[in-house]
């Protein structure tokens, strides 16, 4: 039991799933074990800020606290083609360039308002470059999906029932 408890202590929870930490000796690398991706700790921090911009902490936790950026990395690592992974990583570095070009600062140094502007500009750009577009599509889709399917949301905000035990085909609702 103690051993199991110890293992639990070193797992990283990301939106409800337990992720294995990377080898901690190798400094400067992402904090979770990845098979296909090579992600630095700096990139991981940048992802955390982008995720937090998408789903910020309010009176309830935001993306960073739920480790949704690590969830995105895990999904990217296991569910996407090499080509998409490459585009994502390039798009991530392009975000930094966009921040420098637009505001003369790194993304992390931007005010929340500016971060939001920057992401919205990508979202609304019909001619967004492929890497930035793919990055944003995966990052936003997986952050939002991971959030809605997170343990926190599914057990506190929009409760998912394991055992409903009922069916009502005429459930009254307010007609919109």
């Amino acid at each position, binding site marked *: 039991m103690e051993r199991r408890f110890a293992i639990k202590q070193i797992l990283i929870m990301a939106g*409800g799933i337990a992720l294995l930490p990377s080898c901690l000796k190798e400094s400067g690398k992402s904090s979770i074990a990845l098979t296909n991706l090579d992600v630095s700790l700096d990139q991981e921090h940048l992802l955390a800020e982008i995720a937090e911009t998408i789903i910020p902490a309010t009176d309830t936790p935001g993306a960073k606290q739920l480790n949704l950026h690590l969830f995105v990395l895990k999904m990217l690592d*296991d569910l996407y083609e090499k080509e998409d992974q490459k585009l994502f990583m390039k798009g991530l570095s392009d975000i930094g360039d966009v921040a420098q070009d637009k505001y003369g600062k790194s993304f992390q140094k931007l005010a929340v308002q500016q971060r*939001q502007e920057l992401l919205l500009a990508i979202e609304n750009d019909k001619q967004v470059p492929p890497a930035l577009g793919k990055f944003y599509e995966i990052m936003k889709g997986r952050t*939002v999906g991971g959030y809605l399917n997170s*343990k926190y949301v599914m057990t506190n905000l929009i409760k998912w029932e394991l055992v*409903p035990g009922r*069916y009502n*085909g005429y*459930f*009254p609702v307010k007609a919109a």
Partner: protein
Amino acid sequence: MSNINTESKKTNTYDVIVIGSGISGGWAAKEFTEKGLKTLVLERGRDVQHIKDYPTTNKYPFEFEHRGEPALAIQKENPIASRCYIFREDAMHFVVKDHEHPYVQEKPFDWIRGYQVGGKSLLWARQTQRWSDFDFEGPARDGFAVDWPIRYKDLAPWYSYAEKFAGIAGNKDGLKELPDGEFLPGYPLNAVEDYFKGFVKNKYPNRHVISARCAHLSKPNQIHFDQGRAKCQNRILCQRGCPFGGYFSSNASTLPWAAKTGNLTLRPFSVVESVIYDDKLGKATGVRVVDANTKEEMEFYAKIIFVNAAAINTNLILLNSKSTRFPNGLGNDNGQLGKFVAFHNYSARISAEYDGMKQFSTDGRNPAGGGYIPRFRNVYKQETNFKRGYAAGFSAHRSNERDMTGVGENLKKNILNPPLGPWHVGSHMMGETIPKESNFVSLHQSKKDNWGVPLLNISVDYDENDALMKKDYVAEMSQMFDEAGFKNIKVNDSSQAPGLDIHEMGGARMGLDPKTSILNKWNQIHACPNVFVTDGACMTSTSCQNPSLTYMALTARAADYAVKSMNRFEI
């Protein structure tokens, strides 16, 4: 040495051998053990014990490593399995992986298999509609296949028998084309399903939308409690295995029931290579088995052998059971074994939206899945340019429509408080296909699997009749949707390969004449009467109902007959 052989022969001898532990094998096991016969059930896969071996059954969505999606590497390794809706992280451990059990596709065929105790009964869609004489008389009336050697009256009492034990929820709808059964309370249709039902009834007197009949315990009887099962809790996570035994599976129902008699021996990891035919005795004496793990070859013996390996594998075993008397496979005097394979055409769906009934939504989950539209084409007479017809599913639901635009607090607020969208309605086609000699399975000339069993060639395809029928389904259902006021009607022609319907049937069909069929009216091999086939391989035609309930009834009926025959020393 001969003593040892005699000893081993004795310990390996049973009254009955059942090959396969899926939906029909489980029923055979129950029937024979209840009648006091020592029964050996051989299962090629691993054991799956009720509840104990359902590792994902109580997991929340966020507990799956990729929220349910199989990792890309797994999808790429398993292109066939990945096309099946069951193949997700919660149930993929119950689905055969492509590379473990290869076969040869002479034409594209997605063969979905469940190699474990319980087989696909753990995974099935649980829809249980009876056949009627419009189905059994189909081949004779419409001039295809051969005449079924049985009629509805032969099977009706066995349908009742199977339904009472399995537990079938449904309503007495009073339809000649879909006879009523022994039902537990049916699940209700929802507001829009009921609306469509009423609309169709008014406009088309011969078309009916009913609540789908399904193998769920809506209100269990004592017989179900005696099996250790409880009321269905509307989880709809059935493919993971149900800790309540809320739906019927071999694992929850027939196998533990058989085990309780003390007459059951269940041997997992037992790949049946062939049925042993003794040329001198003129009958089958047992089966040859290869242990799946050790590859050790062994033999088991019995007076009666039931082959319930699932339709296509039953064909494989029989084709591979060669003897001097049967050089082309057991019972295959006419060369028809493996031929006339058919399936159900599930390749079209229609979806739409409905703007009305906004004062209602649904709450909880419906195990029946919604409505069922029995076949209405060519029922009383031939009326179209294609043979036979289709049943259709029909269901309606409302879901939240999330505004996913933007980022930040607004986005968060929007996705946490989504408004209800309009009702979405959907239908899928379940078409009868016509068995043909050119749709067949056969043994590969040289390639064998890891257990020394020849690989199967599968050569099964759609035909012109299927195309015409699909066109009609799309036209009729679209029109009914349109007339009912559904908007934004979309047709999805998936052009999925045969097999993905998981309703493959035939190859060892029943018939009156040994020249044109493999099995007689009791599911006995014409030329080898102590071997019975009661899984999908026996089907003379497919009609369009989900077939499992019919396999259950046929199995119980054949087992009853087998025991009576044995007691009369006929077999």
